[in-house]
């Protein structure tokens, strides 16, 4: 198509996140509940730094409140970061006002957790798929219907699905449509936010396979956000573990699952087995300034003095690293053995 000034060389497809911080509700609120510490802002992302290589599947794992979903949405421009940089295609997305995003919107796409509510209930699937094609001029107007049909076929659906409304399709089918919508504009990175969590178990495999196939066939990068470690281990090339707004460990899947360095990672792995996760006593931990401390210190059984007085950092381009002053070094039992422990 003429006028396509999108960046297409693979080297520019990488994204670099540096010290990304996001505070919700920065203004002091009247009568805040105690959960937010009475008036303090909620720090959803706390100086997050990470690199996303072109075409890789990067898993972001953590529990609710870890900030993993917020990270995904912030990278796509849904939230304006309080500070930090998102470097992509020679620009800092964090500083780019929404109206200047333009073509970048094509490069970065999202698949949501609940497939049903990610589609306007008043329009057919065909209509919802045609919209991005028209909006971004992906193909000629008279070819749009063909393109939509082709997209549906690519994700394993047929023309009959296209004529239906979202509530007439199942969760698995809708999620396929969501993937079709994402790839329709030929993106560089797709953020999948708990894309299979709401799907039936027997359907998850279909969608996971589809995502993997898209990645292998088109080279599109995938930021896969999930709390399900088994799924992350199958799908992802690298894993980033998040805890309360911070990345606490980063490395290849084999490295993180085989030899976890951060104590929180180990406790997550252990939670999958019947072995009871050991927790340290929460009382008696004095933290003067949370910004200058490890945020896992209160629960950590390996805590030393430094953990409460300085914040361990993490080099974003490290092959395998943990934000920890006393990282684990011994090899953890593999997941299968952990499962066997419970039986």
């Amino acid at each position, binding site marked *: 198509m003429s006028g396509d000034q999108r960046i297409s060389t693979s080297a520019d497809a990488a994204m670099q996140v540096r010290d990304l911080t996001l505070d919700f509700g920065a203004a002091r609120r009247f009568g805040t509940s105690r959960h937010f510490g009475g008036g303090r802002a909620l720090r959803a992302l706390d100086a997050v730094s990470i690199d996303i290589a072109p075409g890789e599947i990067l898993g972001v794992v953590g529990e609710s409140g870890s900030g993993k979903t917020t990270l995904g949405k912030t990278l796509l421009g849904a939230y304006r970061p309080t500070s930090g940089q998102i470097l992509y295609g020679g620009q800092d997305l964090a500083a780019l006002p929404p109206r200047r995003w*333009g073509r970048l919107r094509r490069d*970065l796409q999202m698949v949501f957790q*609940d497939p049903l509510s*990610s589609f*306007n*209930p008043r329009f057919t699937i065909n209509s919802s798929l045609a919209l991005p094609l028209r909006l971004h001029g992906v193909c000629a107007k008279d070819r749009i219907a063909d393109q939509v049909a082709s997209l549906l076929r690519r994700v394993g659906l047929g023309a009959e699905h296209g004529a239906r409304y979202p509530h007439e399709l199942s969760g698995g089918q809708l999620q396929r449509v969501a993937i079709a919508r994402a790839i329709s504009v030929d993106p560089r990175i797709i953020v999948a936010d708990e894309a299979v969590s709401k799907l039936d178990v027997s359907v998850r495999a279909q969608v996971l396979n589809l995502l993997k196939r898209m990645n292998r066939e088109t080279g599109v990068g995938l930021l896969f956000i999930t709390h399900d470690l088994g799924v992350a281990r199958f799908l992802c090339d690298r894993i980033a573990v998040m805890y309360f707004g911070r990345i606490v460990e980063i490395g290849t899947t084999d490295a993180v699952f085989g030899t976890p360095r951060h104590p929180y990672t180990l406790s997550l792995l252990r939670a999958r087995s019947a072995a009871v996760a050991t927790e340290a006593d929460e009382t008696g931990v004095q933290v003067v300034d949370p910004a200058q401390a490890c945020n896992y210190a209160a629960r950590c059984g390996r805590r030393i003095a430094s953990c409460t007085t300085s914040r361990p950092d993490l080099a974003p381009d490290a092959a395998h690293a943990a934000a920890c002053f006393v990282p684990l070094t011994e090899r953890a039992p593999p997941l299968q053995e952990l499962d066997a422990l419970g039986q």
Partner: protein
Amino acid sequence: MGAFFTNKLALVGTMITAIVLAAVVAGPWLSPYSPTDADFLALLSPPNLAHPFGTDSFGRDVLTRILYGARVSLAVSAIGVLMAALAGSAAGLVSAYRGGWTAATLMRISDLLFSFPSFVLALFLVVVFGFGTTNIAVSIALIYFPLFARLSRNMALVVKDEPWVQAAQLMGQSTFSIIGREILPNIAAPLFVQIALGVAFGIVIEAGLSFLGLGVQPPNPSLGTIMADGREYFQRAPWVLTLSGAAISIALLGLNLLSDGIRDVMDPKLRARL
């Protein structure tokens, strides 16, 4: 659509409204009588074959006058309410999605208008701006503007946080497109219900103003002026007041049931997933 026809009351409402509309649109042409010409030979005749609704104090055919009058009442009310719906919904939508100072100001003006009882406000507006159908339509529009603004704003506030709206934002859709395609169709149903109800009540307002002599001026018919006439000689010719009053009631009934029907059709569709 199937659901619409299983709801008996809605069906009744639709039929009544359809009959009323048909009568109002076609009736005046079919009637051999003029609504304004007097016939001094047939003053105050009770209902008979020649005059199914009787005649009034000028010998005019009451049925014909009611049909013409209903036409006026419906038209004035419908135009007023539609103006309110368009302007109010637009204001509410923009205020919900964009926020900001203009939105806040719009809502405050809307609240101010809303704080007056409708008929009092209508009286005030007509006294200030003058009599006549145009001004009544504008008054009705001003009365209903706050309702539509509040309603559309409240619903839009909920819808704008839905994931498909966020998906549209991330896809780079324009604000206009998001409001018009992603939000508006999903809040339309209650708005249509309000329009039907608004037209119903608007008829009452118009009739009321005309009854007081502040609306349609004689000899032109309006349901209100007919009722005013009929009230004067109610003892001698009760049919005029009764039948014109009944005409209003029937129209109101039809519109109310129709609005119930609209609500029932649109709601269960959203609850279709068990």
